[in-house]
């Protein structure tokens, strides 16, 4: 597979999840592991352009795919506006959910030019934050999408 633009070739056990492969084999620990059954969204990564749960996909299923993680999107500058908005709006406290939250938010930014707060909430409904109460996160995403600031 290609991870953040670099080709990667490994022999791995069938049971290994994509997120474990990224963290343990490749040292890309920006994708976090929370619930491990698809509820919390902390492990959100991009496979062939679509966001997926890294804990609900086996690494073997990503054979031949293009995988992008928070590290790749951050280094390329793709997330710059969202990262700045999250910082300015204090849209994180402990930061555990932030990589997944940014991956989900960027997915919306790529799909839509403008969005209501309701749509933003629906889009990040699969990403848990246990600190902020979400308002600041929605504010930050809204700032990037609708240029409100």
């Amino acid at each position, binding site marked *: 597979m290609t991870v953040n633009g670099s080709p990667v070739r490994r022999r791995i056990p*069938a*049971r290994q999840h994509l997120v474990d492969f990224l963290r343990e084999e490749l040292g890309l620990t920006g994708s976090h592991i929370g619930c491990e059954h698809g509820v919390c969204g902390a492990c959100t990564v991009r496979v062939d352009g679509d966001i997926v*749960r890294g804990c609900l996909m086996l690494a073997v299923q990503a054979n031949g795919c293009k995988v992008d993680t928070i590290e790749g999107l951050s280094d390329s500058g793709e997330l710059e506006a969202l990262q700045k908005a999250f910082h300015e709006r204090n849209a994180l406290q402990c930061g555990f959910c932030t990589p997944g939250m940014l991956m*989900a938010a960027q997915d919306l930014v790529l799909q839509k030019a403008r969005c209501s707060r309701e749509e933003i909430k629906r889009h990040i409904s699969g990403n848990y934050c246990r600190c902020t109460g979400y308002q600041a996160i929605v504010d930050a995403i809204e700032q990037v999408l609708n240029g409100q600031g």
Partner: protein
Amino acid sequence: MKAPSFAYARPGTLAEAFDLLERHGEGARILAGGQSLIPSLNMRLSSPELLVDITGLAGLSGIESLPKGLRIGALVTHAQIERSPEVKRHAPLLAQAAPHIAHPAIRNRGTLGGSLALADPAAEYPACAVALDATLVIAGKKGERRVKAGAFFKGLFETDLRPGEILAAAEFPPADKAVFVELARRHGDYAIIGLAGTQAASRKRFVFLGAGATPILAVNASKASSLEEAREVLGKDLDPPADLYHSSATKLHLARVLLERAWNKL
């Protein structure tokens, strides 16, 4: 938790897949999008010897117009259904239902066939399939057979699929009008109760999800001539099981709320 150990195969043809399923019998599980199977592996609720990944099989994907309705391949994802102009035009019930399924990252992987074959009583597509009187196309070693959705869902997580068979596609006849409504505590959560309603040739069909072991066709409410009557007789159609948060009476009340919303849109 992490999934237990298992072997993994990704057959390139249906014949190979049937061979693997036959050879491993009960020990084999079919893997498509994996959005229900992998959590159950992670929680060690299931420990198959072999996962047969069917995502490499030709002929199980794609959305195709039929002379009457739409054929949707088993591997078509919820996200594809949500975005498809053909689905919006020919099977708007499914287009309305898809956004209620979990969250975007899960809809990108989860498949129509997976949802139908799992037969979760709170899932959206099984109720839609019954409401639209869909036909399920099942591939087996000896060929294809077709089963009406009403006969396919047999019990809690139990379907008409026999060992070694693979759900290939579902065919949805058109409806004149369709409406999908659902109540959940948070968007994308399991439905407390939901309703797929259709009207074809002035005959209504109301099918509830989360109201029993299978999708439940509300026979009496579907025949009612007024909303008042439909609300009244729904009590004969449904005896919803209580869940952790909602009593049976609450669910029946909520079912009546949804019935009214759906009735007014049909």
